[in-house]
């Protein structure tokens, strides 16, 4: 078995090397002239993003607008992971077998006080990352992970029950669903206004204070990023809670 897997790995490796090693065929690293970099699509993203959407960060614009549909399903993947992990490991009641985990239950004073100071800053930073994702690296996904990490930090510093008092399991599932509803809702809104799915340009008709389709795209992207953040933050926390307690959602790490 070991030998067989070694042979498989070698074959795959040689195949991949064969693909990348021909200097006439495979563009070398860092060349601006490779077909991928010279293709009209990627050039269009660089030159016209700012005109179409007013967003300086091309990655955000492509992520949330040009290929926004991918991102919607990326959010769905996260939601699926949350639901899937819930349905695989969650056990109801306290009848679960195995050792009862009793870590030192009294939270350490130094740690809790440090976290008290840190957590508001982390959450503020998460919101900054979300809101400033249009003109600097960041966006809904990164902000969501950071926000989720701040809840995880609460659970680590005190215990999961303390964290669940602030953000319960049900609330986490509901927030995850709401995130997708926000995202797909933007899509459906543009369908109802008579354009294609996720064509945010049209929502300037109903958004007050937005007069051009470009700005509507700008704000539409912000809206869907908020949806992404809802889903990601709550699912990350949910996954942590489920994995740390073997599905009991109490006690734990």
């Amino acid at each position, binding site marked *: 078995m070991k030998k067989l897997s070694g042979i498989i790995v070698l074959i795959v490796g040689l195949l991949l090397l064969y693909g990348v090693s021909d200097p006439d065929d495979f563009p070398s690293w*860092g060349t601006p002239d490779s077909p991928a970099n010279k293709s009209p699509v990627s050039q269009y993203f660089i030159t016209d993003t700012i005109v179409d959407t007013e967003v300086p*960060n091309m*990655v*955000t614009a492509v*992520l949330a607008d040009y290929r926004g549909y991918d991102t919607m399903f990326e959010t769905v993947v996260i939601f699926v992971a949350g639901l899937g992990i819930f349905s695989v490991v969650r056990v109801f009641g306290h009848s679960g077998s195995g050792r009862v*985990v009793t870590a030192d239950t009294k939270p350490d004073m130094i740690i809790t006080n440090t976290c008290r100071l840190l957590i508001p800053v982390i959450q503020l930073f998460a919101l900054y*990352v979300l809101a400033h994702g249009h003109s600097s*690296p*960041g*966006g809904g*996904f*990164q902000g969501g*992970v*950071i926000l*989720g*990490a701040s809840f*995880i930090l609460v659970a680590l510093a005190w215990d999961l029950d303390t964290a669940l008092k602030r953000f319960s399991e049900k609330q986490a599932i509901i927030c995850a669903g709401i995130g997708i509803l926000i995202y797909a809702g933007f899509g459906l809104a543009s369908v109802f206004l008579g354009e294609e799915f996720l064509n945010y340009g049209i929502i300037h008709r109903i958004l007050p204070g937005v007069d051009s389709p470009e700005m509507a795209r700008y704000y539409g992207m912000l809206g869907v990023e908020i949806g992404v953040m809802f889903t990601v933050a709550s699912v*990350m926390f949910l*996954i*942590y809670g489920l*994995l*740390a*307690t*073997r599905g009991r959602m109490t006690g734990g*790490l």
Partner: protein
Amino acid sequence: MIFAFDFIILLFLIPAAIIALQLKDLLAAAMVFGIYSFLMCLLWAEMGAVDVAFTEAAVGAGVSAVFMIATIFNTKRNSSD
């Protein structure tokens, strides 16, 4: 994009990956995997993929390592290979 920087991080990545797979203590393996992810994140930042690097820093080096540690805490800490 600085070639020397790129070169050095790439050379560090391979031992990090091998050590993460070879350590018998799974908790240590998870930590080395976190280091691997963070090196990857540095590499991508150096290549100009700042958004990807940011995500990897938050996800690969942060949340995935926490998930792994949570699972190791609830199962077994040492592995046979």
